């Protein structure tokens, strides 16, 4: 785990470029360092190189979806928290999504996502 005070590093996995850029801007302004991946395969590779403090994972993506990527990542790095961030409610019924620490439905208002990130990182620090 990173030292307290050091910027937390978040990996944002998102296939839509405009959203990737938006999330990067918004989350950098919250004081996080942001890594980006455009699908599950890239995410798995990136985590191998440098495990982040938290992952924000879209589900529907080309090449490899977020549920599969999360399974692969958590098998190796079981303590990295993952927030599923999808436009769909329906994946909540999929047991594979229960592996995540939180499930946030995409919204133009990013306050829920930001609150979850800070809640999980605080909890992780205190653990």
């Amino acid at each position, binding site marked *: 785990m990173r030292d307290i005070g050091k910027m937390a590093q978040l990996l944002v996995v998102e296939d839509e470029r405009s959203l990737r850029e938006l999330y990067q801007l918004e989350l950098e302004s919250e004081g996080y360092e942001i890594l980006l991946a455009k699908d599950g395969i890239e995410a798995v590779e990136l985590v191998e190189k440098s495990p982040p403090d938290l992952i924000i994972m879209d589900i529907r993506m080309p090449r490899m979806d977020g549920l599969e990527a999360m399974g*692969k990542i958590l*098998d190796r790095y079981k303590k990295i928290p993952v927030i599923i961030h999808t436009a769909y409610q329906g994946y909540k019924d999929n047991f594979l999504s229960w*592996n995540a620490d939180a499930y946030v439905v995409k919204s133009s208002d990013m306050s829920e996502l930001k609150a979850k990130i800070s809640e999980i990182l605080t909890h992780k620090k205190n653990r």
Partner: protein
Amino acid sequence: MILDWERQPSPRDLLTLILAGGQGERLHPLTKDRSKPAVPFAGSYRIIDFTLSNCLNSNLRRIYLLTQYKSQSLDRHLRNGWSIHNPELGEFIEPVPPQRRFSTNWYDGTADAVFQNIYLLQQQKPALVVILSGDHVYRMDYRPLIRFHLEKKARATIAALVYPRRLSSFFGIMQVDSNQEVTSFVEKPADPPAMPGRPNESLVNMGVYVFNTETLVRAVIEDSKMDSTHDFGRDVLPALVQGGGIYAYFFEKEDGTTAYWRDIGTLESYYQAEMDFLQENPPFDLWNPNWPIRSYHPQVPPAWIAPREGQVFNSLVSSGCRIHGKVIHSILSPSVFVGENTQITDSIICNDVTIGDGARLRKAIVDKRIKIPAGFVVGEDPEADRERFLVTESGISVIPTGTLFD
């Protein structure tokens, strides 16, 4: 599928997972070429047949066996003996080796075996999951257990063998309140806690569980993130008990005496459990028409005993055997040939073994397809036996498959 507590679950609401991946190291060399559930038992059976027969007789017909090590002979046995369900009716018995969908590892503990197969639960979406072990010998109707689980509106229910307290130190023991809700777990306690109101008995965890699917999925996911042994009895259930809603179903005979349940862990317990079935009143009735124990039976003629010199006392003799000698208090699997002037006592002889003229076997386990030469003797001189074979503490000699004699 939504769980309706008020009605009886239909077979489609229930999915059964049989944990059949144990390496069975302490049963070596019987597990040299096969997994523990595939080890021959009581002449014409394999250990797995008892659990599968319990399922069949309890109307559990949607079954995955989570297999792992050396599963080929188990697979073949399932195909030959247990291809009896109709997939068109949604029934199946299907072996599932590690798929390594996400994991790069094999099953690491019983809870990990379930964790790695969450996608099967996702596909089937049962209301309840019954979890069983593939290496126990017992006769149990799971229907009252499932009814109990529904009546208690439990999150999970654990079958608890009501067992003499003084003999319970080798097991995982549960403590319960007056409503049979589990309050704590202790693994192999020196001084096992007693049941409420029954000071001489304890509640042994049998490794037989009913879970609400949701509870199960959340529990194994949680466990997957822990540094634990990923074992239901040691890790998952003790953690679940903290949250309440975990109940113990008492497994005992109707007259309140101890029911038969054996975890076939060691060569000693394997041998003893087999010998139990030679008693005049066996632990449970293999002849019970209402509770048939199913197996694969090879197409061989009935056992034949030679006139005059062929003699059989207190033994289980399977089809296809030909006996020219004396068989006393022993168990013979199908197609064993026993030569003239032989004496086989207190022994277990597996399929297709030939025993040459004049051989004497005492307290021996002879695995499949061995040719015992004429005049061979085992079980009379423990020192000599130890030089040739594995001999257990109590003096059981084990002759493994592939042994050649000159």
